[in-house]
């Protein structure tokens, strides 16, 4: 489910007096519901070394602890960070992650030969890391170009009182509780984390635009 997207919509529908009542499954994006290609959240922040940026793509949300061990990345799903460094919202660089059955292989940052909704793997592998298994210490690796990489289950960093929203939607509450209750407490996601030296991003204007795409092998 597109949880992040669902939740705020739920909140918004409250404000219009219930005239728009969306059930959660009606506001999912139909093509990716419960798929390995479903993105739950994207993060971008300074690394512990301020010379680096960290990019996070989380997928397959709301994994219970008992379901997390069996959750897997999909070898037919490309997870792609898109970086625009001249503010035209077209990707100038991509960092691609593809699972080969045991390892996550990374390509880039590299200028893509294909832009837009169709992609191919670009150039050669720049980093690879074994997917961390549930319950094990995080396995990380550093690539030939200096990027650090991780792939595996993590706590879902997102937090929100979704249940209270549902009550408001259902007409049994008129607002939030204080304190609220984090509906995502105790749930996991499958994460890709990449730490990238800023020097690899070509950000001459002091900023980049970032988005994540998932693409299926055709």
């Amino acid at each position: 489910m597109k949880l992040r997207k669902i939740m705020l919509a739920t909140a918004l529908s409250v404000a219009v007096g219930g005239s728009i009542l969306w059930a959660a499954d009606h506001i999912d994006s139909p093509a990716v519901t419960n798929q390995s290609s479903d993105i739950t959240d994207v993060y971008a922040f300074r690394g512990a070394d301020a010379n680096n940026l960290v990019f996070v793509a989380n997928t397959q949300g709301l994994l219970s602890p008992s379901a997390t061990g069996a959750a897997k990345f999909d070898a037919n799903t490309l997870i792609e960070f898109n970086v625009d460094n001249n503010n035209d919202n077209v990707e100038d660089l991509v960092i691609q992650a593809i699972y080969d059955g045991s390892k996550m292989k990374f390509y880039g940052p590299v200028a893509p030969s294909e832009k837009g909704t169709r992609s191919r793997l670009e150039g050669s592998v720049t980093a690879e890391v074994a997917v961390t298994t549930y319950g094990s210490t995080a396995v990380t690796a550093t690539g030939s170009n200096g990027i650090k990489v991780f792939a595996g289950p993590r706590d879902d960093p997102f937090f929100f009182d979704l249940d209270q929203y549902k009550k408001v939607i259902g007409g049994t509450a008129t607002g939030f509780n204080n304190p609220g209750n984090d509906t995502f407490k105790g749930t996991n996601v499958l994460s890709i984390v990449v730490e990238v030296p800023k020097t690899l991003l070509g950000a001459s204007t002091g900023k980049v635009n970032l988005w994540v795409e998932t693409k299926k092998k055709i």
Partner: protein
Amino acid sequence: MKRIINRYFFVATVVAVTTLTACDKDKNDAPVVYYEQQDQMARAAINTVFVDAAEKDKFNTTTPSQMNATFAAKFKTKLLALNAGYTTNALGQNADALSGLLVTDVLNVSTTAPTTYFDGTNVLTGRALADDVIDISLLLIFGGPSGTSNPGLTKDNVAANDKAFLSSFPYLATPH
């Protein structure tokens, strides 16, 4: 399947015009594997809130550079439908400005300033793990120019994650 069909079509076309060299070249090249887009995301909550159900997959496969042309008017309509009393928000954005900002779904990430969704000073310079993006979004959409409108809807009173983040790579907490 689509690729196979295209290949047969290509070969048939080539044979029909007897340009067999092109056909040989096609056979000798290693096949390129392509991947077709299914989902995309940057900021939290954009697609669900601002895109009608019938167009959600379309939004997920519209490249960011085309989002404004395709969806800007619809985003403004949606914003005003959701909050009919919208005037401006705490950032001074009118409906055009806010919907125009949100319609291009990319994360703006500073390579020089602190990276945050909003920290009181920096606006949309990244998204840190601890950022309360829901409260920030609710406040900007429902809080009005002073942030005090619709007080029951502008924060959920969940201010932090249930696990502490790590200070070093990979930063996200271990799974439950």
